[in-house]
């Protein structure tokens, strides 16, 4: 936990490569230099939410099922955002471990759609190649890949894709026997006729992203 405090204060000078800065010192953040105003505006714009509305009551952190696994609890992500600490945020695992369960959004007394902000941070991180949680991203990619090819997702495919990419070759292998023979697993994906159209969506939005960046 004071790892997080350390993080917050040291955040300003932490480099891209870092994951959790156990060894980082309580460097003062030079707010004049290290406040990334453009980042704040970017998040504001993409999320339509105003971080300034947050008065740090901590309700989001209190209710978040994932706080335990986060390197920064949600309320501190919001605080880091207010302080314009781009590097620290995009390097944090929290933004990848958020499951968008919407507890924070539902309970925020300031009516901030926090889950949506986390979403946006995740998107920015992906766009700018910050990935503090490779496995999560790899899984998402496997999911999307399957969707891209078949138009629908093909669970076995996802699992295999994930295991190969992530290197956890046997992840959830133990579950195999449990479902085998229950008529749940198709070894061939259902492919829809319109999968070219789904593919189009992938292509177009990719193109758009390229142009916009």
């Amino acid at each position: 936990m004071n790892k997080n405090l350390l993080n917050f204060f040291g955040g300003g000078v932490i480099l891209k490569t870092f994951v959790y800065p156990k060894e980082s010192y309580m460097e003062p953040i030079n707010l004049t230099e290290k406040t990334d105003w453009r980042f704040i505006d970017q998040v504001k714009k993409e999320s339509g939410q105003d971080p300034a509305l947050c008065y740090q009551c901590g309700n989001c952190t209190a209710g978040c099922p994932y706080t335990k696994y986060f390197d920064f609890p949600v309320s501190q992500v919001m605080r880091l955002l207010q302080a314009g600490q781009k590097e620290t945020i995009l390097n944090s695992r929290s933004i990848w471990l958020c499951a968008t369960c919407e507890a924070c959004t539902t309970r925020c007394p300031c009516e901030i759609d926090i889950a949506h902000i986390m979403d946006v941070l995740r998107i920015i991180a992906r766009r700018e190649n910050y990935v503090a949680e490779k496995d999560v991203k790899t899984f998402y990619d496997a999911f999307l890949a399957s969707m891209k090819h078949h138009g629908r997702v093909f669970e076995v495919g996802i699992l295999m894709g994930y295991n190969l990419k992530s290197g956890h070759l046997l992840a959830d292998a133990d579950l195999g026997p449990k479902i085998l023979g229950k008529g749940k697993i198709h070894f061939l994906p259902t492919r829809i006729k319109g999968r070219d159209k789904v593919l189009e969506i992938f292509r177009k939005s990719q193109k758009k992203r390229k142009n916009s960046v």
Partner: protein
Amino acid sequence: MRVGVFICHCGNNIAGTVDVAKVAEAARMMPGVAFATTYMYTCSEPGQEEIKETIKREKLDRVVVAACSPRMHEVTFRRTVEKAGLNRYFFEMANIREHCSWVGEDKALNTNKAIETIKLAVEKVKQNKPLFPAKFKINKRVLVIGGGVAGMQAALDCADGGLDVVLVEKSSSVGGMMARLDKTFPTVDCSICILGPKMVDVSQHEKINLHAYSEIEEIKGYVGNYQIKIRKKATYVDWSKCTGCGACIEKCPSRNAYDYFNFGVAPARAINIPFPQAIPKKATIDAQFCRQFIKGKCGVCAKFCPVGAINYEMKDEIVTEDVGAIIVASGYGLIDLDKLPEYGGGRYPDVISGIQYERILNASGPTSGHIERPSDHAEPKTIVFVSCAGSRDKSIGIPYCSNFCCMYIAKQAILTKDHIPDSQSYVFYIDIRSPGKGYDEFTRRAQEEYGAKYIRGRVSRIYPKGKKMVVKGADTLLGTQVEIEADLIVLATAVTATNDARTLAEKLHISYDQNGFYVESHPKLRPVETNTSGVFLAGACQGPKDIPASVSQGSAAAAKVLSIFSKDTLESDPQIARVNTNVCVGCRKCIGTCPFGAIEEQQLRDGRIVANVIETVCAGCGICSSTCPCGAIQLQHFTDNQLLAEVNALCLT
């Protein structure tokens, strides 16, 4: 006609974003304007002197001051021109600060706007006629609405000042919220011990006429002469006979009535006296729960009443009182737990509100001061206090701070330790707000001497686990989640306006803000006045307030009343409707529309029926003027000509 225009710099407030010199320049060009100048602070003494001298020197007969809002200084400057020998209505104010220099960013546009605003005022002032106030006698009795600490203070101060006071209290006893409290912060004084004497004074003061268990039905009239209709609700007990012996309560078989005084901590009897020190100490029947009313048979209390005071046939009764001024001290309400679903929304008996805990702590409360938790009457060892339960929460429409929760939580934490030495209190807070005298020291004491653990963070959920309640919160200073397995949870529920605040405001013709709290006439300088002359505010009906603040306001409101009653007559505002009997065709439209019934028929010598305005009753809204088909009835100072002059000043270019 010689109009003089005085343009105020107001330091930089105006001159900063308006080119005042240019404005003066333009003003001099306006038809009818004989003189125009700028001045640093027009409202200052030299500023007003300047105006007076210029009026004489330049032989001005009309004056326009372009400065702040007329709501600030119109009165000031009217006095000034009057001192210089002009009628006070030969004056107009152009608001070039609040409506111009403070809200526009472009200096050129502001300057032009200021010029036009002045042009408008000039055209108006040229149309103005001299008006002269009439004098009328005032009724030196005062109505106080609400018998809480603020209302009682106001009533006592007025009565001691020699005024007859009519005190109307909704519930069956005076005392209000303060009577429910156990102790008071930061002195830990026994609340009822310091309030009791005041309550007794109220009941014994020969100049105070108390209507308990009564509500305001209707208010008519104006400052100096109000007619009030008061509904004395049926108590089904003849209070002239009732001795408050309590025999009826003993015997009442209906044991599940809701206890309003104890906020439902424990059930009450259908016939009840709210608390031992109640004033008046008289019994009241709650017809919702009384078997006589539900089932039509019972009559136990009647059987056992030694003085035969019970009267099931009793009906509400309307009494009328005439007064000259009104002090509103109708107090506050609290949100229900069902507004807080994440805290159980009232489903869990061991999650209670601060005021309920106050009753549990109180020796005269349902547990006679022994702290027990409602579910199983066990003595709680771990108590969690949650501040801002609903306050500062836009998502449920309560964006404001409830003002005194931080302090009473600290007090309750201290008292808990006193009652149960081996208990541990935890306080979840977002900010500790303790700005009063000795307040912050008090919250420190709760932590330093009484070991209350303060946790900076909000609670997100409360749920049962076995006999305990799990409180899931955050410690934002540690940046972690925290969980406490508590025996009892006290929520500092948000303070709101009373649920009938709006209807009362409408009867009083005073305004309320979006939260239902009454609006004072100036937030800094007229805190107890309202925009309706003769109506004053005291206590939490104006916004969440603690005891000292409420008491001060009670006294302040009383002082205001005493000062207007120090004269025997008041000047009526001459800005009222007048009928031009030559033009009036007697169509009676105005009589129908006047909200105050201020217009009556009048027969002229030639037999024609025309409208006639009762000067003292007319409030000057001007609805009649815009209703009259032939422009016969005109609101003085806002006549069709005057308003059209303004319209034309803007539009005919």
